[in-house]
């Protein structure tokens, strides 16, 4: 009995050992094959253009034999996830489409590979790209010929509106009677507020609708990316153009405070209830469900909205961020594509960038839902008519301004998120107090970074 039991256990053990050995050997045997199958991992945000990029990437795989893998993360955790990855010198990403504000930190910390030599060797010229995108996505220090990324996805804040509601005769007549002008996409923020007030609480097709959708998100970058669209046009500057990092009197000028008051007034008068922490997706949901007359959002989403069966096609219209009393600007979005310095496949990653920079690839990128920054695409004669939002996109890209791109951008951004959200949504203090506090916060951050900050 005992002997037979022992024999049984011995056989079982031998079987298990053989199985493990087999698996291990097959693993070793397949290793060279795995090494031969080249692949690249591209990291970006999970949104509509990322799907277009997957489609585009199939051509690269066909051409090069290099398989493309993707790591897409939702916008709300995109910065946390990938900055953590870069900070910890992780090897997840070979290529990264990083936010414009990361460029300073990425360059100073050597997270990205500097591309100057590669551009020179492959005859890729930055003069071939829209200037705002080169400045925003590629250069560090700003306005210097030091390139860390190729402009990949041009983007800016724009607006959509319900063209079908705007064109209804009874609504038009009522609007004209009330305001003495035709109901049309607004050119200024004052006009936008009037239109938003006009639609707020109105019943359309038996449903209560609201005037406007604007960004109010607290956690990542939402409310800052919204409020700056108004602030720029009311006279807000990040610092003294003649004296870098001198913020007092520029960030918290009385005009900037008026801009912040305006944003709050717009939020209070004309948005749907509950929009206290809303960003891109909430805006899309509000617009697609027929809840709002006008929506602030990134151009990146407009191809998808135009295709929407309920609110797209003839029902949707697009307009550029309206002007304010002190100018006409809009918030820059978008990203450049970079090679991660810790990647073990840098040559293949550079090969991808070379392929991506080609005019025919850029043309296809625009056609399938991406936004090319290549002049050959956006300056082509047919571009204006290639999409209903193309003219507004081009106009916007000429008037963009961006947030700080310093290595300490995350601190600067979170400070602004806090001060602005506290004032606009939580009714804390005045606009002037919020901006004064912001100057103090930013001064502290820059001093920690070792910068000299002039107070006056």
């Amino acid at each position: 009995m005992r002997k037979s039991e022992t024999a049984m256990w011995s056989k079982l053990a031998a079987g298990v050992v053989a199985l493990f050995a087999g698996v291990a050997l097959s693993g070793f045997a397949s290793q060279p094959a795995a090494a031969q199958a080249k692949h690249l991992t591209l990291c970006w945000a999970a949104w509509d253009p990322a799907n277009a990029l997957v489609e585009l990437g199939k051509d690269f795989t066909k051409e090069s034999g290099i398989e493309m893998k993707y790591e897409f993360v939702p916008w709300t955790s995109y910065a946390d996830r990938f900055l953590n990855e870069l900070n910890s010198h992780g090897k997840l990403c070979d290529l990264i489409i990083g936010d414009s504000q990361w460029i300073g930190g990425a360059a100073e910390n050597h997270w990205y590979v500097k591309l100057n030599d590669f551009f020179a060797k492959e005859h890729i010229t930055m003069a071939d790209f829209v200037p705002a995108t080169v400045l925003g996505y590629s250069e560090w220090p700003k306005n210097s010929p030091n390139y860390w990324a190729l402009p990949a996805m041009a983007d800016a804040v724009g607006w959509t509106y319900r063209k079908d509601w705007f064109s209804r005769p009874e609504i038009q007549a009522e609007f004209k009677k009330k305001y003495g002008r035709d109901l049309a996409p607004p050119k200024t923020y004052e006009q936008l507020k009037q239109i938003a007030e006009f639609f707020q609480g109105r019943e359309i097709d038996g449903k209560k609708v609201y005037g406007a959708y604007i960004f109010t998100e607290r956690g990542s970058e939402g409310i800052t990316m919204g409020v700056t669209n108004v602030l720029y046009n009311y006279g807000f500057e990040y610092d003294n153009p003649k004296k870098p990092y001198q913020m007092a009197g520029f960030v918290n000028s009385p005009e900037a405070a008026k801009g912040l008051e305006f944003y709050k007034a717009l939020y209070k008068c004309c948005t749907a209830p509950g929009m206290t922490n809303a960003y891109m997706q909430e805006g899309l949901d509000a617009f697609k469900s027929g809840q709002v007359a006008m929506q602030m959002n990134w151009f990146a989403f407009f191809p998808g909205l135009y295709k929407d069966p309920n609110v797209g096609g003839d029902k949707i219209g697009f307009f550029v961020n309206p002007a304010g009393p002190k100018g006409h600007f809009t918030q820059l979005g978008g990203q450049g594509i970079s090679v991660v310095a810790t990647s073990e496949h840098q040559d293949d990653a550079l090969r991808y960038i070379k392929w991506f920079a080609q005019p025919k690839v850029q043309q296809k990128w625009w056609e399938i839902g991406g936004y090319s920054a290549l002049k050959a695409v956006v300056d082509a004669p047919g571009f204006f008519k290639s999409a209903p939002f193309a003219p507004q996109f081009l106009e916007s890209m000429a008037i963009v301004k961006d947030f700080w791109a310093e290595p300490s951008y995350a601190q600067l951004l979170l400070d602004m998120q806090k001060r602005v959200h506290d004032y606009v949504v939580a009714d804390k203090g005045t606009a002037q107090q919020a901006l004064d506090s912001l100057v103090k916060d930013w001064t502290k951050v820059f001093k920690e970074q070792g910068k000299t900050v002039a107070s006056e």
Partner: protein
Amino acid sequence: MTAIINSDTSVDRTGVQTSFHVAKRVRGLSDRSIAWLFVTPTIALLLAINIFPLIWMIRLSFTSLNLSMSYLPLRFVGVDNYSDILTDEDIWIRLQTTAQFVISTVVLQVVIGFGLALLINRQFRSHSFWTTIILLPMMLSPAVVGNFWTLLLQPQIGPFNYLISLFTGIPPSSFSMTGEVALAPWTIVLVDTWMWAPYVMLICLAGLRSIPDYIYEAAEVDRASAWRQFWSITLPMAMPFLMLAVLFRAIENFKMFDMVNLLTSGGPGSTTELVSITLKRAAFEKWRTGYSSALAIILFVTVFGAANIYVKALNRVKQR
């Protein structure tokens, strides 16, 4: 010492089955050595994943380290991070918000949890079924709770606002439980209480069931009223359990992050920003590693100190 050898004992059987070489090797070790042999892996693990990071964090808290600017030289800044934190008005406001949250939730959870435990302890028909139903919320992950309450509280489609509207007549989409300064702090208290009052109930139930029946029988003989029995028997004898529940919930809620982060992200503005959210933002969004290490140490010392004082009080109650 005389060993009594009985060939039928399991010890003896194990001894017989132990191989000679192993037995020989083990025989050479003292009891103390064998004890150390078993305890060493645990201690090594504890040192590696608890003590070493803690010491490392204490070291970092005296530096200027900022991971988003790791190219800057690491400077020893002494107690600057600590003094920055302790003189920062915002941090004190966050601590106040956290204290308000902890006190409100613990009070509500103890009252509701103890009330439920008294009801369940009556052992009515189907009480086991109701116990299971009541315990369901605490079995869920805080992430799940945060997400589905976000949906329930959504002003346009969430059923919560419709329920309020039914009783008050206030239009459901005219207010936002998570978005209004006056309502958001109470909303996080409500959700946390919904989730964790069952936990307090469970601890209290254990306490109530540990009270011997003969004490109540003696009280009945003495014609003590139900109210008198509650004040003189139930409450004092369940008190150590209640205090334990308070300790557990207070420590947990002082560290609360996930559920509040999902429900309000600390908003509107900074209305519901608990100190754990501030810590997370400083450490993993602003990348101020030195500063956030100092903040973590301050919070650790605060909880550790408060818990120690409380445990001493708890022991005094138990001795009574």
